[in-house]
């Protein structure tokens, strides 16, 4: 059984893309093709012009960092420091460079005080940060986050959102795989909708996430504010509202009240 069928996708440098769909739609399969963990049966995947079938996963990973959903699938070192250094050593960086990059990654994720701690002793959220640090440490151009919002509370998701914006501003291409509509609505990236191994929608978040038929096809639900505004079109409210900021502006605009 084919997990992906006839998928054609181009992602440009610096883009922020959310790949969405229900569990089993093929999202993770798709992104695993980007770093060579999976190779296409038919067709090809080019990363920076390089065919993924001709290069090893290790080489592709230098460009494409993949943060897996469950940090416990990665953590194995005695200290957080070693954990973050692991990939750097695999990629053959010299000792000085390793030290420098570990410093940088730890401070980026606010983990410096945990550097000597055992990763297994940290809380769930902290372990997630260690996993993230260990991938960002080698500064890949592309960062793929697989279901980064699972089990996170509101505050943690806000932090994540800001963090993604921060690394995006540094020029990184960020791809998140998720079914968390509200989170994606808040980020408003390019959205690629998948269902049953196919891409059923591809466009700006405001375009895709307000298309009821598409969202239903992907077995997702509309963002809450979109649902609220759905029946209110004839009152003059816009139909491309997906998050609070949009909603607030729209309503105030309608009421002619200054914001």
């Amino acid at each position, binding site marked *: 059984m084919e997990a992906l069928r006839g998928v054609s996708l181009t992602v440009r440098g610096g883009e922020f893309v959310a790949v969405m769909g229900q569990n089993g739609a093929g999202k993770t399969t798709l992104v695993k093709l980007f770093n060579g963990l999976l190779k296409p049966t038919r067709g090809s995947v080019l990363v920076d012009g390089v065919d993924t079938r001709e290069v090893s996963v290790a080489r592709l990973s230098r460009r494409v960092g993949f943060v897996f959903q469950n940090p416990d699938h990665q953590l194995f070192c005695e200290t957080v420091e070693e954990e973050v250094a692991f990939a750097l050593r695999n990629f053959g960086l010299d000792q000085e460079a390793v030290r420098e990059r570990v410093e940088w990654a730890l401070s980026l994720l606010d983990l410096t005080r945990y550097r000597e701690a055992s990763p297994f002793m940290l809380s769930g959220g902290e372990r997630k940060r260690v996993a993230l640090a260990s991938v960002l440490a080698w500064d890949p151009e592309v960062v793929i986050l697989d279901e980064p919002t699972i089990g996170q*509370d509101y505050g943690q998701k806000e932090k994540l959102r800001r963090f993604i914006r921060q690394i995006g501003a540094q020029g990184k291409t960020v791809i998140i795989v998720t079914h968390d509509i509200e989170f994606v609505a808040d980020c408003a990236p390019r959205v690629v909708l998948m269902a049953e191994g196919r891409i059923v929608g591809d466009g700006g978040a405001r375009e895709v996430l307000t298309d009821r038929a598409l969202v239903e096809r992907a*077995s997702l639900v509309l963002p809450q*504010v979109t649902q609220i505004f759905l029946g209110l079109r004839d009152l003059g409210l816009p139909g491309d509202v997906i998050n609070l900021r949009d909603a607030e502006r729209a*309503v105030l605009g309608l009421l002619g009240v200054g914001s």
Partner: protein
Amino acid sequence: MAVIAARGLTYTYPGREEPSLRNVSITVDKGEFVLLTGPSGCGKTTLCRCLNGLIPHFYGGRLEGDLAVAGLEVAEHPTSGLARHVGLVFQNPENQLFALSVEKDVAFGLENLGTPRERIRERVDWALKMAGIEDLRERAPHELSGGQQQRVAIASVLAMGPEVVVLDEPTSFLDPLGAQTIFEVIGGLNERLGVTVVLVEHRLDLASRYADRVIVMDGGTVVMEGDPRQVLASERARLVGVGVPKAVRLCRFLKERGVSLGGVPVTSAEASKLLEEALVTDRC
């Protein structure tokens, strides 16, 4: 009639210095649907484990204060005895299913209780029906989706006929439709069967419509409780960092700008209606 009565409950995990629960006092009446929420680490999961006796019997540590569930003092009854009265559904669907078929899994608790075979069969059939998974009877747990697995977990717990069902973030790993189905099943149990429900959740936009009461925890204590609409619309909830549904946040935002919506919506349909009314009246 209080089916859960906690007074001054304080608990410290073994080896830790700081208590994870401080002076928690709550009562839950029979048939209530209570939504328990709060930021990560606030003690909600710890409280769940107290409710069926895993704390203190499985975890050890120091438990102070009183906690009675279905009339039984938790500290004095083993979990195996409490399991008949309070069922606990965990976050990870995979790690609470042991058997090789759904049917055997649902029967597991009853088998442990020494229930006669005929009765097991009756209760299993009933529980499968209540959870809407009769067609999954012969399937192996590994073949099921996360949402289906959670429904099996709910059925397994339900089969034992508890008065209270506690669910600790059951939809964490599920996609939105899967989550919605779980909430519908739980809501149905509460409404039709009168099962008391304690649901720990972050997904308040989907879950709050079923709740009779919302309890907010932070730093091991209860900081707020009451009617869902009041709690969600409160400033306190926002400050604590609860995932207030956007419908409610929109409502608050407009209120601050002098546009009163005439109520606090817990569903998008409600919000739509209130918004419409407000906008129409404003126009006139």
